[in-house]
């Protein structure tokens, strides 16, 4: 077995806890604890703080003083307590058993944090991140004598009903397969030997480092979200990134959850970062009951949940984003399409701010540290569509959707502005729309998508997709401008032609863009159905115009009873949308011509 650069080597051993250094606590300020007597410690090394061995991480070194952030509550900790350095950075544990798991920000399974029926999260627990006793049915893909290198497929185990968990050669390892053990194994059991060295299924990877890929690919395929306003007007590419900024109550969480339920990803990593406990409970209660729209398996089996709620320690909130993205990359490397939802990235930024202020760093805008932009970039840049390392050739993707919670709902604040520069989609939620109960409250005039996906939609869904999309977009724009006139002069001030535009704009808003997540029939909408609905509205506009040309009074046209049929499109039976659309177009044309 040959190993390359040891620093980039993917570790695959079990729990190693080697104390390289031991020092003493000298200062405590909330999650920030300083120690002396740790001369060999490096930045981002993991430390164990105090007699309870609280997990922490080095965030600053200043002469003899090593400053750490502690991922647990530090109440009761005393000056003079021991601090151990492990000489290793914070790792994610990767392997079978992640799907369906519910983890805290440092990947501790929440089940193991409240034992014996306790309700609360006890302190100092350090359970293994992945179950070490479960046996997985390892099915090898290599034979003795095969030559393998990093990323090559060694074999797989079924994880849940729908996902085949692929076990790959760790980075930094290559050689000849000398033994294969096709038997039920724990993640620590060796399943293959390479050059005589045992390789088990467990991988460890430093959270803060992106995992390597062979190649980055252009982003040409959409992640279908099932949300009409997004798929039609602001589609996100597989491997792209989107942000959802919005004041409180505008629908960020409902939208993130809808994406987690209905988007066409193979795997979803959902990070509840500094938000409500009940929202995670909701996911926990709901997801096992729902099924994956594509495989039919329970939704929970494609989901990894990371929960660091607002009342859990702040530093672990900061780590939760990295735990999430590392797990996402790990499945990407197996050749899957992964979507990562982060609700809310602002709480992560605030955790950075809190720690930074306790370090008495020079603040930049709004008290955030000057490195905020770099950290955000480091995160969003881990999205991408890639050719994975190794054979057989695979592609995978990580798409990031981050909610942003701007103070006072004002988008000029640093997190929104910095994320805006990085993300390819900006799905701006609007307080005014949410107060009118227009959901999803995506503001169609302010939002944007930078991904050119028309070609895919035209090819896969219908060749009229992109022309109709442009038409709808323009019609909404025109309606917006006319609404301003109406609010100054009243609707009577508009020409008949303009009132038709107004009515069509209304149909687009109310009958197409609005989509309730609580309506079982309409919570998700496939693109074929979306296109059919759009065609109907487009044809309705044409029918109205021709009625107007025949001299029919404008009020008779805009208030024609048949227009209420547009509101029923969302309840069409799923199997016959095209027929339903054709029939409705015909009916509207007939009724308009009989006016």
């Amino acid at each position, binding site marked *: 077995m040959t190993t390359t650069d040891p620093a980039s080597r993917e570790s695959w051993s079990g729990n190693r806890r080697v104390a390289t250094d031991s020092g003493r606590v000298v*200062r405590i300020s909330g999650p920030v604890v300083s120690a002396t007597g740790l001369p060999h410690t490096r930045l981002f090394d993991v430390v164990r703080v105090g007699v309870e061995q609280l997990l922490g991480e080095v965030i600053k070194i200043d002469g003899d003083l090593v400053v750490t952030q502690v991922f647990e509550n530090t109440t009761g900790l005393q000056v003079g307590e021991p601090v151990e350095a492990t000489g290793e950075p914070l790792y994610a544990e990767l392997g079978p058993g992640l799907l369906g798991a519910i983890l805290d920000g440092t990947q501790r399974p929440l089940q193991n944090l409240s034992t014996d029926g306790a*309700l609360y999260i006890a302190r100092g627990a350090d359970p293994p991140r992945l179950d070490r006793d479960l046996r997985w049915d390892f099915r090898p893909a290599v034979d003795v004598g095969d030559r393998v290198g990093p990323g090559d497929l060694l074999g797989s185990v079924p994880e849940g009903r729908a996902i085949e968990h692929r076990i790959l050669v760790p980075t930094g390892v290559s050689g000849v397969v000398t033994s294969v053990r096709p038997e039920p194994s724990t993640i620590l059991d060796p399943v293959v030997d390479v050059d005589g060295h045992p390789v088990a299924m467990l991988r460890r990877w430093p959270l803060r480092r992106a995992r390597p890929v062979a190649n980055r690919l252009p982003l040409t395929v959409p992640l279908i979200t099932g949300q009409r306003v997004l798929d039609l007007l602001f589609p996100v590419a597989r491997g792209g990134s989107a942000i959802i900024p919005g004041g409180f109550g505008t629908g960020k969480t409902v939208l993130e959850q809808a994406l987690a339920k209905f988007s066409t990803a193979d795997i979803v990593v959902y990070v509840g970062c500094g938000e409500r406990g009940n929202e995670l409970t909701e996911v*926990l209660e709901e997801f096992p009951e729902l099924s994956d729209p594509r495989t039919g398996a329970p939704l929970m089996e494609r989901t990894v949940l990371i929960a660091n709620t607002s009342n859990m320690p702040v530093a672990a909130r900061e780590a939760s984003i990295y735990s999430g993205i590392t797990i996402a990359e790990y499945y990407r490397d197996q050749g899957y399409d992964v979507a990562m939802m982060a609700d809310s990235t602002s709480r992560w930024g605030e955790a950075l701010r809190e720690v930074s*202020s306790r370090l008495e760093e020079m603040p930049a805008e709004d008290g955030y540290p000057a490195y905020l932009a770099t950290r955000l970039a480091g995160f969003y840049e881990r999205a991408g569509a890639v050719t994975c390392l190794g054979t057989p050739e695979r592609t995978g993707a990580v798409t990031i959707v981050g909610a942003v919670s701007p103070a006072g709902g004002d988008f000029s604040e640093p997190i929104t502005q910095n994320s805006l520069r990085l993300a390819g989609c900006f799905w701006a939620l609007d307080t005014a729309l949410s107060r009118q*109960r227009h959901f999803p409250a995506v503001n169609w005039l302010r939002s944007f998508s930078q991904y050119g996906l028309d070609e895919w939609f035209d090819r896969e869904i219908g060749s009229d997709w992109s022309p109709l999309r442009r038409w709808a977009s323009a019609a909404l724009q025109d309606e917006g401008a006319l609404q301003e006139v109406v609010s100054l002069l009243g609707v009577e001030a508009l020409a008949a032609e303009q009132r038709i535009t107004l009515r069509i704009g209304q149909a687009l808003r109310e009958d197409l863009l609005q989509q309730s997540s609580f309506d079982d029939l309409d919570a998700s909408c496939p693109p074929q159905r979306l296109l059919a609905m759009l065609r109907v509205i487009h044809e309705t506009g044409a029918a109205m115009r021709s009625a107007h040309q025949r001299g029919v009074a404008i009020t008779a046209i805009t208030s024609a009873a048949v227009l*209420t049929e547009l509101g029923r499109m969302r309840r069409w039976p799923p199997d016959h949308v095209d027929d339903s659309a054709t029939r409705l177009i015909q009916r509207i044309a007939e009724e308009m011509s009989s006016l």
Partner: protein
Amino acid sequence: MTTTAAHPAFTVGHRTVTRVAGPLLVVDGMDGVGYGELVEVETGDGPVREGQVLELDGSTAIVQVFGGTVGIGRRETSVLTRGRAARTGVGTDYFGRVLDGAGRPRDGGPQPVPDDYRHVNGLPLNPITRAHPDQFIETGVSAIDGLITLVRGQKLPIFSGAGLPANSLAARIAAQARVPGDDAEVVVVFAAMGVTRREAEFFRTEFLTGGAAARSVLLLNLADDPTIERLMTPRVALTMAEYLAFEQQRHVLVVMTDMTAYCEALREISAAREEMPGRRGYPGYMYTDLASLYERAGRVRGGTGSLTQLMILTMPDDDITHPIPDLTGYITEGQIVLSRELDRQGIEPPIDVLPSLSRLMNAGIGAGKTRDDHRGLADQLYACYARGREVRRLMSIVGESGLPVEDRRYLAFAAAFERTYLDQGPDRRTLAGTLEVGWQLLSPFPAAELKRVSAEQLARHHHEASATATDD
């Protein structure tokens, strides 16, 4: 906090105060003290004050003094440590009592006998042990029951403005709250921070006279009590409430007022520590601090109790984007917003339903819980009222005559909605009554305009009025 006499075995050393800065002391010689620990500050004369360690640097500690630092000098003051964080007694013996902001009796009565003691900061509930709140609470207030439905275990604030009747709304909800078909009693833990004597008297009469006394506890930190004690008040209240809800399986309603006074105390500490101020001088960690209170609401699996929070905050300048309502709204499960305009018109309670929201409403309503048409009807009323308000705004520009007929119908609806649905005076309405009023208000609209309700529901409940009835 406990006021049990200091046991000599737990009391360690007298330390020297080197600096007094606002509510903070800098104390030397604090070896062996834990972060966040409770200390006692003695000045020779006057009562012993309690404090908490905010920062440790070598043997120097920064201590916040809950009783305020008035009269504390460098010389005669000594600081004693007890080797533990702040605790409070919990139990049913507190019912009927008035306590101060730190949990000590202030009604002249005997020391209550607690069932046990608990740390006031509590611990985070594990998300996997929570049960999602889904049991409808009928408050008797139409705007809430119909449109901003409260459920057991929810945290729902009232965003108020100076002079608006938030206190009476909270008292009314506390008095009337019931779960149809379940006569489990609701117990009330009431935490008042920075309230006036007059307000305190109001709450004392509401909660501690008559039958309510046997199921209520009042913690009072008055406007002229030490401000820093306010940081303790909600924590003591919530600790008592958690015990009752999750160990005694009671249905607990915690009313906290005024969160604005609480946040100001937080700002005071932050300023004294010379921390980097965030928006409007409030500390950057205020979100996390508020979350550590609000997230203590909920229900747990396997338990039958619940902890519901109703907190009142005064929006400075009626500004909903001010950090206090803003951060609160980001944490709580919705908000009830009071409107000065409706209050001026004498509408009682003056709830502006448009910016109001209950995020847990969906879980608590519908067939089998309230009624199958509840959701649709609520959405429809919202949509009509939102449009009516929009038309009203328009009308102020173009005049009523410039409005098309349909628009005038929405205008009339908005007025009727405010007069009948919102303005119910002191009467209590059942949910059925609330739904009934809602459907009646929709009767001027042709069925085709009512897109938010299903055809079957329309057929069952909608009685379209004749066209002439719409012209008000």
